[in-house]
């Protein structure tokens, strides 16, 4: 991962100290949490956010290390710097949590989401939808005479933008995976 490892149980390398204390400004952070892939671990994480009143903008989870049975949970959350620090410390207290990384402060990172869009349309609108999909490099993964399913990957903002454009063209349904994120470089 990045050079700035926030080891569980330590607040030494927190970038918290670089920012003003107890500021009211709400920030958006992307956290990567490595956990044992055991029953109930997701419930623990979600229960923590619900119980302490933290926000979840997006959450994805899947096993990423099949031999070590480790899952990676990627959470996009918002809060004041103090709340973000609390969220990380509270996540660190959960026993099956191995590591908590704040990608937003640890350095540059890439963020991607996959989305499927079902768009219904005829004539001009259908052509326009296809043209926009091409611009966005969305793939057609299903088509009928009156509908398409587009598949799009990208940053969440790109997916939002595509959804906005599809809406007047007959957008029926959207399915999004939530954000997956990795730091850049090594």
């Amino acid at each position, binding site marked *: 991962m990045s050079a700035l490892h926030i080891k569980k*149980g*330590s*607040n*030494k390398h927190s970038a*918290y100290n670089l920012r003003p*204390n*107890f500021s009211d400004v709400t920030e958006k952070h992307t956290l990567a949490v490595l956990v044992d892939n055991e*029953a*109930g671990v997701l*419930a*623990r994480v979600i*229960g923590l956010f619900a*119980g302490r009143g933290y926000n979840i903008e997006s959450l994805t989870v899947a096993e990423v290390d099949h031999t070590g049975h480790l899952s990676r949970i990627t959470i996009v959350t918002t809060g004041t710097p*103090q709340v973000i*620090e*609390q969220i990380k*410390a*509270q996540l*660190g*207290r*959960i*026993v*099956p949590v*191995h590591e908590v990384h704040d990608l937003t402060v640890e350095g540059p990172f890439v963020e991607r989401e996959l989305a499927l869009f079902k768009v219904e349309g005829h004539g001009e609108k259908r052509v326009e939808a296809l043209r926009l999909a091409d611009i966005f490099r969305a793939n057609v993964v299903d088509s009928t005479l009156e509908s398409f399913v587009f598949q799009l990957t990208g940053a969440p903002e790109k997916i939002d933008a595509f959804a906005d454009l599809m809406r007047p063209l007959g957008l029926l349904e959207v399915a999004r995976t939530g954000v997956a994120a990795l730091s850049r470089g090594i």
Partner: protein
Amino acid sequence: MTREMTGAKMVVQALIDQGVDTVFGYPGGAVLPIYDEVFQQNAIRHILVRHEQGAVHAAEGYARSTGKPGVVLVTSGPGATNAVTGLTDALMDSIPIVVLTGQVPTFMIGSDAFQEADTVGITRPCTKHNWLVKDTERLSATIHEAFHVATSGRPGPVLIDIPKDVQFANGTYTQPSKTPVGHYQPQVKGDMETITELVAAIESAQRPIFYTGGGVINSGPGASQLLRELVDATGFPITSTLMGLGAYPASGKAWMGMLGMHGLYEANLAMHGCDLMINVGARFDDRITGRLDAFSPKSRKAHIDIDPSSINKVIHVDMPIVGDIGHVLEDVLKVWKARGRKVNSEGLTKWWRQIEQWKQVDCLKYTPSEGSIKPQHALSRLEALTKDRDRYICTEVGQHQMWAAQYLGFEDPNRWMTSGGLGTMGYGFPASVGVQVAHPDSLVINVAGEASWLMNMQEMGTAVQYRLPVKQFILNNERLGMVRQWQELLHGERYSHSWSEALPDFVKLAEAFGAKGILCKDPADLDDAIMEMLDHDGPVIFDCLVEKHENCFPMIPSGEPHNKMLLGEVSLKDAIGSKGAVLV
């Protein structure tokens, strides 16, 4: 010893290998195989409580008075749900508890079977960690891991849910030493750079204060010893939270008494006015800080805590030190000594002079009465008559609890069991049962309010059955006193549902259980009555009828800063001159 055994046998074997000598429990269908194994051995003593909440509080009392984890065994469904209050209590106060619950067989989970409850789901937010064991092969390792998690880092309650078929099935037993230690290894050594920064602050501080909490007790007797050494060597004043009483002796030179909402005037004003605050194992709880934006405005703050999430949670600190109190204090002492044991003597002398002035207010003064027993007087007499004994004190929750913290002195750690974080009425009596089980020859007193005491009074059965000579010292004001006090001060004296009609005759109640009851209502009889209680070799319910409308002072009303303390009527006159004190 065979490696192959049933899950039920494994439970008992694992407890023995973990050094457990006592289990508090209550049987039921889903734990019968384990109870069958309990029956066939003598290494572990099982104490049959009368309610599962009582089992958990008893285990808490056991744990807090011994420093060892308390163990509980209860059945599925209602057995597990009855344990929830105790688990939450132990979580809030960081008490190591291992709770074993029975569960319906794995093949029936999810079918709404008889006495099925989603125990791990229900207890997830009120345990440090919990496990549902679906395979007997995993059972012994899970129990060992549970003890590790409960006792390392910031201690807390854990729960293991064991389906009945897992108890019946055979599996291989793993010994604790053969169980791989998980990745859960909290940091115990503090950061040396910050420790050195703290030492430099200690050397120059003009108005320093130690603010200590339950973390010192949890860290073990060694931590209390180091704290005493550091406090006495620096000559800094020390105050403590409700949870930390006894870490530094009440008779110690630097002791200022408890701080917080019902803390001592001098302790709270010193917190407000200090220039260096050294928080040792406390967590800036709202009962301590009062209004946050006015909390100790002029101080630099150090915070030593094993839990990183305690740091900067409510109060921003300048010197955060994550680590075990014992380890960190040892390093602080080492560095401070190596740098020449320096303090700012001139500043300290002035600071103590100021503190002595605050002490003149005599904030615990109360109007004595000849016609009725003042609760403060009852506790002062209890203190005088028991302080030299090998004594453990538990409390319930309410005014009596705060008075006990104010008027009793604690010389050693692990001698004071009270529900701090959750404030659980009904805690004290079962806790006293657990303490007495652990210390059969000591004097164990539960300072109670009549309303709290009634919440778990069924444990009289346990006390009598096991001949536990616990003394239930009930300060009976026939009121939910603390609620009544708030209604008087904050709700226009509208006493909505804050008194009990139809209270039992406590003497007859004691007799009905086969115990001794003592009624005392005249201050002139008090000493004799207390002596009668102490001399009786068996459980006693002491019904001490006290002044009904006495208020507990000092008091910082919720949402007010430390210097806006309300003092009792007596000290009204004295305190008016002192800066910042606003009085009722």
